[in-house]
């Protein structure tokens, strides 16, 4: 109730303020009073923010680059990763990575020749036929998978799942050890298919 009274009081004072506005408008055409300075120039610093603690950066700076920077220690083969995949990934992506609607497949190498995704809408993109960098698999799974428990896999589990996906796509052998040194060296089938945006070189449609 007290808040209601406060609201009513505020409302009444607003009405008074509106009513008293008339006298103020009478001299609106009079001279601009007081000195008007230009806006201050931008300071060297607004002195906002603080330096992050090293452990703060370490906790968040988890991205993995194509050159392997950001990959942690740890290692696994596809054989070892198979159990992790079966336990934590297969329910959404299928036992063989074939996809479970609405989740698309992550395994598949068709088309074996060419890269006809622009010509053929029926082609389905997978890690094997479309992803240009193997490091992206590790980076993405660590960020976002499993969808109901993201960020829960250990480095060894992540290397194992990454290895399993790559092996199932026929890109590596099942007994190859995947770690911070070997993962960046894997050349994905679609690696050279990507080109930078050239649309802005012309006002014509590209």
């Amino acid at each position, binding site marked *: *109730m007290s*808040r*209601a009274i406060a*609201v*009513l009081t505020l409302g009444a004072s607003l009405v008074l303020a509106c009513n008293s506005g008339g006298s103020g408008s009478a001299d609106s055409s009079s001279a601009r009073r007081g000195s008007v300075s230009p806006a201050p120039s*931008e300071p060297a*610093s*607004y002195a*906002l*923010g*603080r*330096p*992050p603690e090293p452990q*703060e*950066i370490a906790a*968040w*700076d*988890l*991205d993995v*680059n*194509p*050159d392997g920077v950001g990959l942690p220690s740890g290692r696994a083969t596809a054989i070892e990763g198979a159990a992790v995949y079966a336990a934590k990934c297969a329910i959404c992506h299928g036992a063989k990575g074939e996809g479970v609607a*609405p989740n698309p497949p992550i395994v598949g190498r068709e088309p074996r020749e*060419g*890269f*006809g*995704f*622009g*010509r*053929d*809408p*029926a082609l389905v*993109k997978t*890690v094997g036929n*479309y*992803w*240009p*960098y193997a*490091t*992206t698999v590790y*980076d*993405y799974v660590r*960020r*976002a998978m499993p*969808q109901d428990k*993201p*960020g829960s896999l250990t480095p060894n589990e992540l290397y194992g799942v990454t290895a399993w996906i790559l092996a199932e796509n026929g890109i590596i052998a099942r007994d190859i050890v995947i770690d911070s040194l070997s993962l960046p060296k894997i050349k994905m089938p*679609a690696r050279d*298919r*990507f*080109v*930078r*945006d*050239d*649309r*802005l070189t012309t*006002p*014509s*449609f*590209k």
Partner: protein
Amino acid sequence: MAGSQDDRSLTRRELLVSTATALSAATLLPADADQAALGTQPTEPVIPADPTKVPGPPTSAASARSPFVQMARTPTGATAGSSLAPIHLMNGTVTPSDLHFERHHAGVAMIDPARYKLMVHGLVDKPLVFTLDELKSFPSVTRVYFLECSGNGRAAYSAPKPELTPQLIDGLLGNAEWTGVPVRTVLREVGVRSDAAWALAEGGDAALLSRSVPLEKLMEDSLFVYAMNGEPLRPAAGYPVRLLNPGWEGNTCVKWLRRLELISQPNMSRDETSKYTDPLPNDTARQFSFVMDAKSTITYPTYPVQLARRGWVEIRGLAWSGRGRITSVDVSTDGGRTWTAAKLQEPVLDKALVRFTHSFQWNGQRTTIVSRAVDATGYVQPTLAEYRQVRGSGTNYHYNHLRAWTVEADGRVVYEVAP
């Protein structure tokens, strides 16, 4: 009685009720004024026979739409999904915040502003962490920009059918007044090193969504945004802070932004390799295709509208370009044989939605209406045939070909699948 109403409107429960309940509560008559009229369903809005003879509901904490107005997005219920805005039911150019399109990759992150922080680090002289209050303490700017998912238009290109509304085709589109701090203002504080050329923007959602953005764009006009249409960002729009890259594909405008790492080469994250790349017919895929090309669509009359009578019809629609200002929109009412410059509603803003109108006399015969945008760079929105030839039938994202609508002889309007 008035007192009891005030008490009721100030309870915590009332502040937390859903929009639907709030709507009902706001349109209810005072509880004991007309109990009989409320009947057995007290949540039904009561519309008096003569509103000039009965006082209406009192003031309320937040207003709701008229119960006669039905506007809704198209949520699919998926955690990783999108919901399209009913752009064909909107007027003007500003998108109501509660109807702005959504696209989430792991649901809507719910973030406590007291625990929020933005870390700016990497190739900088002085890495810094900012609280929300600190970000808001920087000099602010307010700008109007469109925001669009680069997958917008997919339904019309990949699965065209006559029964498509503008919402289902182009509803991953909004236009808002954004307030925030220019990214360059914050980068000036940390001191960007000369070897930095990109920045990895990372969200604090369950996907840790990440995109590499060229430093040049961040220094040009990108914003750390914390308000939208006068209020703090809604959670679905990235509360408390998102990145906004004006005119660029929505996916780069990372929501729930928690980290900006200055880097020398792009990170090649999933959303800039396996997603948000555009396969072309020459067996390549275009990558980092950030800019949204010029586009326009008629929003009225379109499916499911049926024109009630012959005579003057005002064609209304939206045009936009990530390359800059829209300079003209051409409209054809004869299937593209002849064109007329539509009227652009002022002000026409850079990288913002523009409303165009064009009146024509419908004579009761079947005809096709279509719009064509031109922007300040001279770019002309392509035809469907041009688009298909250049981009290929299997391409993905950036579908900006002309959208055509056919008015049947009985007045029904349908999407034209073969213009």
